[in-house]
């Protein structure tokens, strides 16, 4: 693998990378199955894409077994940082937060808040014991 940084992944590549981050080192078949679960795609397309990505240095290939096993070359955090440089991406993702509903607000909790949370939970645990 080359030591220089791989290029920014395209959207299609990002999808494959997400599968690899989610599942860990994976065979082409499994990547294909996961992607095909959401939209129709050819096995050979995924295989070709993975080969291209391996050339670009986005993924690593383990050829020790009969079925080649692919693995993301960089951790998710690294790629996220890389992608965060993309202004458009960031603007859209940032603004999307105001629309999404979820268990946590888009605000980050502060250190003091986290400490307070811990204390609360600990205290609760102590009480119920």
């Amino acid at each position: 693998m080359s030591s220089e940084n791989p290029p920014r992944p395209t959207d299609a590549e990002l999808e494959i990378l997400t599968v690899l981050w989610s599942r860990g080192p994976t065979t082409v078949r499994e990547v294909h199955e996961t992607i095909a679960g959401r939209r129709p795609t050819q096995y050979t397309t995924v295989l070709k894409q993975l080969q291209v990505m391996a050339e670009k240095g986005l993924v690593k290939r383990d050829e020790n077994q009969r079925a080649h096993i692919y693995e993301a070359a960089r951790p998710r955090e690294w790629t996220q940082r890389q992608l965060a440089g993309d202004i458009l991406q960031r603007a859209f993702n940032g603004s999307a937060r105001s629309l999404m509903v979820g268990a946590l607000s888009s605000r980050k909790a502060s250190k003091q808040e986290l400490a307070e949370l811990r204390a609360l939970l600990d205290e609760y645990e102590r009480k119920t014991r």
Partner: protein
Amino acid sequence: MNVLDQAIGWTLLHSLWEGAAAALALAIVLGVTRSSRIRYAAACVAMLAVLAGFGVTFYRLRPRHDGGRMIVRILPSAVNFTADDGPVAMTHTWDATDLLPWLAPLWMAGVLLFQLRCLASWIGAARLRRIGVCGAPDAWFERLDALRLRLRMTRSVALLESCFAEVPAVIGHLRPVILVPVGLLAGLPAGQVEAILLHELAHIRRGDYLVNLMQTVVEGLLFYHPAVWWISTVIRAERENCCDDLVVATSGDAHEYATALAALAENRWTMREPALAATGGNLVKRIRRLLAQPEGPRTAIAPVLSAGILIVTCAVALVAWQTPQRSAPAIVPVIPVTPAPAVEAFEQTQVTPMARPIAPTRMVGLKAQPEALEQLRDLMQKLEIKRGVSRFMLALAQDNPSAQANPAPWPYQKWLDEVSYIITDAERKAFKSLVTNDEREMFIQQFWARRDPAYPQTTAPEEYPTIPKGNPENAYKKEFYRRIAYVNDRFADKKVAGWKTDRGRIYIQYGPPNEIDSHPSGGKYERPAEEGGGQTVTYPFEQWRYRQIDGIGANVIFEFVDKARTGEYKLTTDPAEKDMMKQQLRMVEKQLAALPAQMKLLESQLEIVNSQKEIEKLEQSMRALLASQAPIEQAQKQLEELEKHLQVLENPGAVFLSTGPGEKAVVVVGPDKAVLVTIPIDYDATRISTTVTSSEGKTVGTMGAPLTDPCEGKPADSGCRNNYTKTFPLPPLPPGSYVMTTVVTDSNTWTEKTYVVNFTVN
């Protein structure tokens, strides 16, 4: 001045006090009720009221075509103003009305900006569900489906892992998607992930995404109004509270859920972003609420205060503006102000939650087990169907020749088995490659000859000694067969020949041990420090010590445990093997932990089985799994009983009595404290009573207690056995002989059965 600008300008000004009034009404509602559903509904109504107020005001002030001429009904022109209050107005260097012409364009620009932002959010959200996502593992889909059923949701929901999402979130209303950050599903305990997913499902069930979208649009329209932002904040907070409540009502475990939220906040699956201001998060409040702890300062006070101030200032300003216009009474707008509809709608919403019963809180603990069992029974039904199909296929293919007859047992197998502990692999291979029986007889002679201490040892294994006849005085062979005879005599039980048992094997291999520490009835055992210390109750066990074993070392100890109490002691290297308490604990833990994987395996096997034989086998393993799950609770109970047993055993000089293996009751008596009666019976008993009388016929103590059926509610095939153990306190017994009479009432026939045990206290 444009008439439309004027109408908008006035509408904006009026909406200031309208909004303040709505906020005040909301603040009052918030002060009164704690129910998150009512608070949420009230906040939504307040928001709608501000919007409606804006619309109605604008409608009343709208420019009208009146005989071809556009007029605005309120037209507080500067000329009018100054004409009435001449000198005062002249001194005004600044007046709110001066701002009026600017209001409309400013507002429109703001609305444009905010709606653009809303659009960008919408596009961004659509992108998020498309880019950098992949389907979650199938196992999680199944769990999500189960959770969906628990919330009684019929809508299908997609679960995607996203590399952009920092926190789990719901996107979309018609085709909702739950996005979770990559790594979260695997990174948090399953129970916590489930709680989070429940929260997201609750959002979907409540249609929160759509409400939030509309809320954002309204925020964009009324962006200039602080009260609107405050109401919006209340809606957002109460929305989360509503979902929190739903999660806790469904899962029943507030603490787990709170822990999950805290864990989420702690390690956000985040990308780099500018650090946000540390304040303002309401997570602490939420978790305090979840754990039902008293809150800090009440939330409602601050907004009430601010709304009050706002309304006062607005009223003052309004009066100041309206007084000059006495001359035109028709122009005072009578605006249907918000609180009235708000209260009405609020009362309606208040009724609804009362009418709908909240889902019953579920038991926490071994809750995963019943579901898995349910699933297992389901699988067994499917298997039954498959069995029918297979039978049919078998009937079709009846002509096929069935299984072949077993080949006759090989006459030399017995010898090979006997010497299996001492024969080397090379020898075994050589023996098996022999063709004629003469060769085999020869080999056997040579085999013993090679081990004969009287015979000169050869170095090369190929050079078989060429003694034509075996040496009848072969000491090795004699000792070997003596050991075989010994172990067959001593260690055999009904099923297993003595030489096949573990003790037999060790004895044959290493001869008689130098020391045997035997505990044939188990009982109290002081755990050595290296086994964790403390006291426990053990299964029957034996320890064999060899001073020296060539090739292994000095002071070798073998430990054998008879866990099944069949007399067949098993060799173990684990000192905890004999420890009954540890074993029970371990069994429970192991079974619970192994359950999901076993289910998965059975499920995958169900897919592929075809023949009767395979189906038979699969059914057996399913039944075995089912049976193995049933005694878990029983095991826990037994553990408690063991603790009691231990207490009895701790009494010095305890008498341990057994009425023998063929009989029924086991009685353990401690001379000064307690008596323990163990009665393994195979019928249902309701009551047990025990009387102890001294040899003179004097009653020393009587104990009675109702019994609960340990197998109650378990299926008949669960393998549960009635095994009642009862501990009774007994007064100190002076030395002497006693008779214990135990009467057990059979709950089916309502007859009494009596067990009599004689015992002596020394």
